[in-house]
């Protein structure tokens, strides 16, 4: 027994269980995840209109704070915020305040003082969005756009939306995640989401150097041999392999990795014939995936991108709703006091 360890309070939920930040999928139940997917479904229709806007975030200011570079994720967040009618400010922090020696806390407090309502945060440190939500600007809704190796919850949810569109649901599904799980925030969030939504099996396929310690504890099985691991799969998710992994003595060469763990047509043929192929992007053709597979009939990689906007609209509108209802309650409470 240990004493008084970090209380597991739901930092990202209001007292009545609504989202007020979106930091991680940990602690969100199946009903909440399904609610996010359903809300995103309703926004997909918005993207098909000639005027692609709804007024849910009108008058609100959303700041994209990317401490790590990203083109796709930042663009989809920006589009999502604009379709919700928010005012959007994009800050590339690496080239601004922090390079002049300003601390993260000071940068954020300054932005908060500009009456920001929501920060979309990407950061190289695991837990950075938690830190901001808990200690720096608790009155601003924080959306995690990827933190270190910890979580990338909007990516995982857009992947879930894509799977649901193609498979109808999650019951009975066998899903594999292939490649660099160790360094992947995407994989951690996907494993969590697939478990909560009721997938039958989540397999990770990788050499031991690319797996976190005791990875099974996350809710998955381990397969070192991709030929065996492809059997009966309904969904195969490929992860991006960073070039630096070769330098860190985690892998001998790209060529050997591709031979053993790259998804080519021969390996894909071992899976269920209707197995879909996913990748969070950007893809390295010929490193983790063959072009013929990435562009082939089983690939749903571009659907993932389209769904990214809808999921981000869903999460932003839900978190802003929770944040506003909490602000109103605080105001009401303040008047009573």
């Amino acid at each position, binding site marked *: *027994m*240990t*004493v*008084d*360890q*970090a*209380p*597991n*309070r739901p*930092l990202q939920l209001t007292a009545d269980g609504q989202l007020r930040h979106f930091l991680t999928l*940990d602690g969100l139940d199946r009903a909440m995840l399904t609610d996010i997917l359903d809300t995103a479904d309703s926004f997909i229709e918005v993207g098909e209109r000639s005027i692609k806007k709804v007024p849910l975030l009108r008058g609100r200011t959303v700041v994209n704070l990317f401490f790590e570079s990203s083109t796709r994720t930042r663009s989809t967040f920006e589009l999502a915020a604009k379709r919700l009618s928010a005012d959007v400010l994009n800050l590339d922090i690496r080239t601004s305040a922090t390079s002049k020696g300003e*601390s*993260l*806390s000071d940068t954020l407090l300054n932005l908060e003082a500009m009456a920001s309502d929501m920060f979309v945060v990407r*950061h190289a*440190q*695991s*837990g*950075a969005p*938690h*830190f901001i939500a*808990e*200690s720096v600007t608790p009155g601003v809704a924080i959306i995690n756009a990827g*933190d*270190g*190796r*910890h*979580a990338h919850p909007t990516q995982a949810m857009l992947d879930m939306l894509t799977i649901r569109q193609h498979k109808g649901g999650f019951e009975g599904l066998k899903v594999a995640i292939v490649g660099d799980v160790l360094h992947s*925030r995407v994989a*951690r969030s996907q494993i969590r989401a697939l478990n909560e939504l009721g997938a039958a099996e989540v397999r990770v396929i990788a050499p031991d150097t690319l797996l*976190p*310690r*005791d*990875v099974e*504890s*996350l809710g998955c099985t381990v397969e070192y041999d991709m030929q065996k691991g492809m059997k009966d799969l309904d969904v195969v998710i490929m992860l991006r392999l960073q070039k630096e992994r070769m330098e860190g003595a985690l892998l001998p060469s790209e060529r050997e990795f591709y031979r053993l763990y790259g998804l080519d047509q021969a390996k894909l043929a071992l899976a269920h014939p209707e197995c879909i192929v996913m990748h969070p992007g950007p893809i390295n053709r010929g490193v983790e995936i063959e072009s013929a597979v990435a562009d082939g009939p089983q690939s749903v990689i571009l659907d993932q991108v389209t769904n990214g906007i809808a999921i981000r609209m869903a999460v932003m509108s839900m978190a802003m709703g929770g944040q506003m209802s909490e602000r109103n309650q605080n105001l009401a409470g303040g008047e009573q006091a």
Partner: protein
Amino acid sequence: MTNSSNTPGESLKIINGRLVLPGSDELIEASVVIADGVITAVGKAAESARADDVFDAAGSIVAPGLVDLCCNLREPGNGQKGNIASETRAAARGGFTTVCASPETSPVNDSGAVTHMIRDVAQARSPIRVLPVGAVTRGLEGELLSDMAGLSSAGCVAFGNAGRGVRNARVLRRCMAYAKTFGLTLMFSPENQALAADGYAHDGLVTSRLGLLGIPEVAETTSVMEMLLLAEETGVRLHLSQLSSARSVEMVADARQRGIAVTADVAMHQLLFTEEALAGFDSRFHVRPPLRAESDRRALLAGVRDGVIDAIVSQHQPHDSAAKQAPLGATEPGLSTIESTLSMGLLLVNRGELTLPRLLSALTRGPAAILGETADVSEGAAANLCVFDPDASWTPDHHSLISAGRHGPLMGSPLPGVVRMTLCSGTVAWQVASR
């Protein structure tokens, strides 16, 4: 509370307290008489003795003053994190009468000038004894030997690496052989830097779940094994500081059985907390070595109970708030513990995980012996005493802590054990107004 001192020559009698007699594990009610900074009578001899002042210690335990082998006072050089005056006063409040000052200051304590400076400031501003620990290598850089013999003459009681690496086994072996030449004690925190790499948390379940950068258990155990083998060969007096894993405790026990002169300590927080403390990214619990698994915590406790681990240390590391106000991996390691070390130990006693006599011995006699000293409440001993009420409680919070570091492990909740009086060589180092 006061910081006043008894006039030298004045005598004091502490009555109605309970104490542990040397060589005994039982608490008995007995009086203690002090004069001229020395314990002049204990027990029966004390009952009839007269004294100028009487302190009623009813309900309290009269223990030897606590001894800390690992404390960061942050002076010279890190005034924003604390200084000798602030941190020794905090230590006196925690019941300590002796603290070993870590060499990790700025500049590092690798020269006689720094050692003298620490001693001079302590002489002027500290209510308790401050024993400097010298850097084993110059600048703690792990490459060149420091002037250990000279530093020893200047007042360093042992030599350590302050958790930093030594370049390779060859340098380590030479550090040991040189220290052995002069009969010096080495206090080493074992960590294989290549295996620890950029990690900041135990490589285990929580790290895997949260995507933290892990320090594997083998970063410690391979280093412990290397140090034990080199200590065996060189014959140096080796003290392993702040063990964190079950396997390390096993290896130390085995080495002792083979007759190697090795002792060990553990930080109090390692006995209370595990990797789970980081589950909410709480940067206070970013400590080095990291908090490991529950099985490690239990083995460390067993090590303290069996005596394989000789001492419990505070590993007090005060910081300014900015050092902890950042995403977990960007924060500085360390907890502010010196005021709550005894209370944390009493939590373990209240939970039945440690006996009170064993706790006290690991905070007094055990560490004192490593310094070649004794710590007993006995006639003729220096009057270094800690009088504490184990049943009273206090609540550490931002306002109540004396240390400049406000990142205590158990803030805002009542803790058992209030130190009513700390006496250092018969002088009052800390006292709270009687109830």
